[in-house]
């Protein structure tokens, strides 16, 4: 296991017969992922892009040994889809679905904790380990196998930065898109220990944004427990206070969660903080050179 997914990953796609489910099943397979099953209640027995469809996750697990679920089902049904995956023994669920009410996510998060199922997301790009497996929707083209870990609250901005890393001739060990919703199953402080323990990761790129205090907590964690170099970028420096900058719910409140507070916390923790996203790849290369990893 690299971080979360590897070549033993066997993906079940919940909501495989929907447009997104089908499109990304193809993409995950092109990435080299073992997509072993799909689930759409009532459509058991069908095939989607060569993947057998089951009526329930329990069936899919029993018949195919699926161990990671990627959930595309619409928001009103996402909570129950996650409960089903958990009850069927799935221990990693990547929830791509957006617009899940946070009250539902609270239930899902704590139920997952209780039963031992980790959530990535919701409303997230998911996880990818180039050359091994992808559970999610990050475009395949941005990747190249390597030793840079990426963890991010953003979607397309992550693709942009991961792509930039590739363009300077480096590659990624694992990339985790956490999602930017108010309640996420895995936050920076949950993800960083995975990279710390991963022998295949030399450096971590952390992509944050304004709102919340996840980056400040990450800085605290990095300061106390993280031994590898970190390059960070925080989006939203120019965002005016009090404006909601997107449905992800990035609201600035009480002077906490500003770009300035996040950048300063990360710098104090020893991270290199990029001013602009296009500066990240060069800073990564520089930190790697300094650390003697390249």
């Amino acid at each position, binding site marked *: 296991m690299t971080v979360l997914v590897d070549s033993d990953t066997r993906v079940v796609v919940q909501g495989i017969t929907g447009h997104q489910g089908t499109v990304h099943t193809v993409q995950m397979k092109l990435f080299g992922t073992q997509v072993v099953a799909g689930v759409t209640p009532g459509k058991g027995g069908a095939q989607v892009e060569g993947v057998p469809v089951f009526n329930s996750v329990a069936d899919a697990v029993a018949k195919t040994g699926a161990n990671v679920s990627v959930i595309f089902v619409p928001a*009103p049904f996402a909570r129950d889809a996650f409960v089903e995956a958990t009850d069927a023994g799935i221990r990693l669920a990547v929830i791509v679905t957006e617009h899940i009410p*946070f009250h539902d996510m609270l239930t899902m998060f704590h139920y997952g904790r209780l039963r031992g199922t980790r959530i990535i997301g919701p409303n997230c790009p998911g996880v990818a380990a180039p050359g091994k497996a992808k559970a999610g929707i990050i*475009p395949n083209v941005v990747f190249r196998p390597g030793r840079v870990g990426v963890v991010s609250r*953003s979607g*397309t901005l992550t693709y942009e930065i991961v792509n930039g890393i590739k363009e300077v001739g480096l590659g990624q060990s694992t990339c985790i898109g956490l999602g930017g919703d*108010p309640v996420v199953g895995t936050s920076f402080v949950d993800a960083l220990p995975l990279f710390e323990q991963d022998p295949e990761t030399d450096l971590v790129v952390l992509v944050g944004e304004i709102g919340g205090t996840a980056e400040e907590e990450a800085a605290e964690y990095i300061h106390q427990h993280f031994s590898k170099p970190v390059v960070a970028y925080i*989006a939203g420096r120019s965002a005016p206070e009090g404006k909601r900058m997107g449905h*992800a719910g990035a609201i600035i409140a009480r002077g906490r969660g500003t770009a300035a507070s996040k950048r300063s916390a990360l710098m104090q923790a020893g991270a290199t903080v990029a001013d602009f996203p296009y500066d990240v790849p060069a800073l990564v290369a520089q930190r790697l050179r300094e650390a003697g990893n390249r």
Partner: protein
Amino acid sequence: MVKLAEWRGKEIFRRYGIPIPSGRVVRSAAEAADVVRTGAVALPVVVKAQVLAGGRGKGGAVRFASTPDELQAVVSAMLGMQFKGETVKELLLEPKVAVGRELYLSIALDRSARVPLLIASGQGGVEIESMADDQLLRVPVHPFVGLAAYEKLRVGGVFSLTPPASKELGGLLDALWQAFQREDAELVEINPLAVVDGHLVALDAKVIIEDDASFRHPEYAEIRDDRTPLEEIAREKEIAFVQLDGDIGVIANGAGLTMATLDVLSQFGGKPGVFLDLGGTDDPNKVTEAFLLMAKARPSVVFLNIFGGVTRCDTVAKGLVAAMTQVPDSDRFPLVARIRGNNEDLGRQILESAGITALSDLKASAQAVVEAEKQRKAGGGS
């Protein structure tokens, strides 16, 4: 995010058993006169403008009337007035009461702890932003168990109530928690929670309902007082729409990329006006819709920054060129497009053939946008 007017929030409180003053909403002076004449609300009354912004007391949006004549004058003055960008259309009339103490109580989400957080203060009546941190009691409430007795005792500790108010607190806290959970609220706030004649009364109500839960709450779908028509269209198409001070229009996909785009624009002296965030999608239809929506906002120049994941760049480019033809000449604007991803070279060719500036470097694109705006302004554009 559906911010409810005070009277709607109080209606929810009433349903859950949180005591509120017995008031009436009026939309005209005649209605106000009726309410008092029939005794539905007895004079003297407090008249509260039903706007969503805070600071109503200081801003003249809360007034008092002791006689029918006074009431007519107050209501006539208040209806139609502007308050922090909102037009006052509804007034809440409530009996004026002798307020003993003013307390603060709210429940909102603690994102880091992933549990709701109840906040209480013995010093209510002012906005929470202006309260000192050490005056605020923070009580995490686990969604699987609700408010436990010891947590209620902690709230009781900061409120220091005497009977009967002290006896009423536990039930009120349960009711507020239930309202927060069952109504899918982002925020339930009582400020002030007042002691009136020894009893607890919610003198104000601030309730924000989560948009994403609208499938469970169709009853809130019609409450959109705070949106402009363009914002309403954007919402229906699931495009985040924000109006800032500048003139440059920005279309991007994903909150992070949108913010990064604004950051880079600002760096080169550009002032973003409207920006549209398509979410994580690169669906060509949605790009087209955003483009047409942007045209209606009449920007001086538009910067389109799309990172293509699933869709090929040439498909997005073709959609964009097609959309361009639908914009009336009078609404035309310079466009700088940056589309990255699969087949990006082909995409750029298509755009350039249609006379659209197409770049791949973010920095260079931002500079081109700022330059285009300068030229347009220099050329005496709108």
